[in-house]
């Protein structure tokens, strides 16, 4: 089976599973409320220049939540539901199946961008215009790739770790701050900057806001940084997943939930 066909089958499998999991729509419920909160605060403070931050942040949060809460649970849920043995017995690379399924969930998260734009336009009469649509589209695309890479890594970490729930519950807001998704990294204390720069959200947020405002100086470097972080997390995720599968085969624990 070719890699593309395999990925497509993985997407179909995940779409079928997600249809039976209403909680996968959580991102779409959260985004409008978050946009309303952030826009109300921004506009009450008469800061029209920060509207882009308030509209883009829920989209980035949507991607992160989709990666962390749903995509990240894929392998763990396979074990719990008894699908794991059948999946790794199939004559295809398990890592690619995971990546395809992760991509499906993450791409649903991108709808949060559209929702927050609609809330701003219809609810507050503030339609966000993009000064450089080409750069914006590239920024969204590489951000999605980075989210897929991160989710593949998280999926492997969660299934290896015994503290999955703790990690899932804890890795949201600290990363929203570090990622500068609302308040730019430049406005955070200097000692946080090096940590921020290993979080893809920080590059993505700057890129997206820059594209909206028409200030995209040095954007190719930012795109390269996001792609590099995406590739690194994807490689680490696939490696960790393969190690985990090998270990369960070796130890005879494939059937454990």
């Amino acid at each position: 089976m070719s890699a593309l066909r395999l990925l497509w089958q993985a997407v179909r499998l995940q779409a079928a599973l997600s249809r039976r999991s209403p909680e996968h729509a959580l991102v779409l419920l959260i985004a409008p409320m978050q946009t309303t909160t952030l826009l109300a605060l921004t506009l009450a403070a008469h800061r029209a220049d920060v509207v882009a931050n308030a509209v883009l942040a829920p989209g980035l949060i949507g991607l992160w939540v989709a990666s962390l809460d749903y995509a990240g649970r894929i392998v763990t849920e396979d074990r719990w539901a008894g699908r794991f043995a059948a999946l790794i017995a199939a004559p295809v690379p398990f890592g690619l199946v995971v990546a395809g399924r992760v991509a499906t969930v993450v791409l649903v998260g991108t709808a949060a961008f559209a929702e927050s734009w609609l809330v701003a336009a219809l609810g507050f009469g503030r339609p966000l215009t993009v000064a450089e649509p080409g750069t914006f589209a590239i920024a969204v695309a590489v951000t999605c790739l980075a989210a897929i890479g991160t989710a593949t890594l998280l999926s492997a970490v969660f299934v290896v770790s015994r503290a999955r729930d703790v990690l899932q519950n804890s890795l949201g807001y600290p990363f929203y701050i570090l990622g500068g998704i609302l308040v730019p990294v430049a406005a955070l204390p200097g000692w946080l900057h090096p940590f921020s720069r290993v979080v893809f959200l920080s590059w993505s947020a700057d890129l997206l806001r820059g594209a909206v405002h028409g200030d995209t100086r040095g954007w190719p470097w930012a795109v390269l940084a996001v792609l590099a972080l995406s590739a690194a997390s994807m490689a680490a995720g696939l490696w960790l997943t393969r190690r985990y599968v090998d270990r369960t085969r070796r130890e005879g624990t494939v059937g454990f939930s």
Partner: protein
Amino acid sequence: MRSVLRIVRESLILGFAEMSAVYTWRTWTFGWLVRLLCQATFYALLGRYVGDGATMRYVLVGNIVVLACLEATIVVISLAGERRIGTLPLLAITPSGHLPVYLGRGLQWTVTGLTSSLVAWCVLPPVLGVPLPWPRAAYAAPVILLILASSYGYGCALAGVALRTRGVEWLVLNLAYGIVMTFGGVNVPVTVWPAPLRIAVNVLPVVHGLQAVRGILDGAPPGHVLRLLGAEALVGAGWYAVAALSMERLVSAGRRDGSLGHAG
């Protein structure tokens, strides 16, 4: 009275036993609690970024107090869990009746909610450079307790939805908490919303209690603060009444058609 206290005790023991399957005190402190502190900080930083020190204090106070509501409404998940594993009938046949047992199923979240909110109240303002008027700020503690109680009733009432529809507990929880967070005067005063919405938010928990907390910090007259506390208590009582009615109907319908033991 003694039987109610016993139920509270047993519920807390069960709740914390359940929590200990996920958290140790270390992972709770450095994982969950830090996450909640970061949540309040996240919004407070936006307050400082778009406004001044007063905006930041407004946002920070709102987001610290609302942590109590966030945790209290997690009762939705605990109750839906009973439905999922099919133990609702076992709880319903207890000698004390189903209501106190059902209402007690998420009591552990009130303890952790109070702890989180009070830790944030003491730690975040000095760390973020937002001074609170101590010792007056200490009077906020009992108000947070009241907010916690009314939010718990709100959570129990909305758990009725999660008990009737399979797989929606996380949606219900996030919607319940998100509505309070968005429209309840946490980040912006309720006066910024259109008139119908401004009237509607009066039935939400937190709204009046949070105004009382802000009144205490600003040195408002005690009569004004007490009126707000009375309104918060009334709202909470209303939600407990809705919860009791909802659970009564669920159990009586479940007894009649045998659906109480269905896993949703």
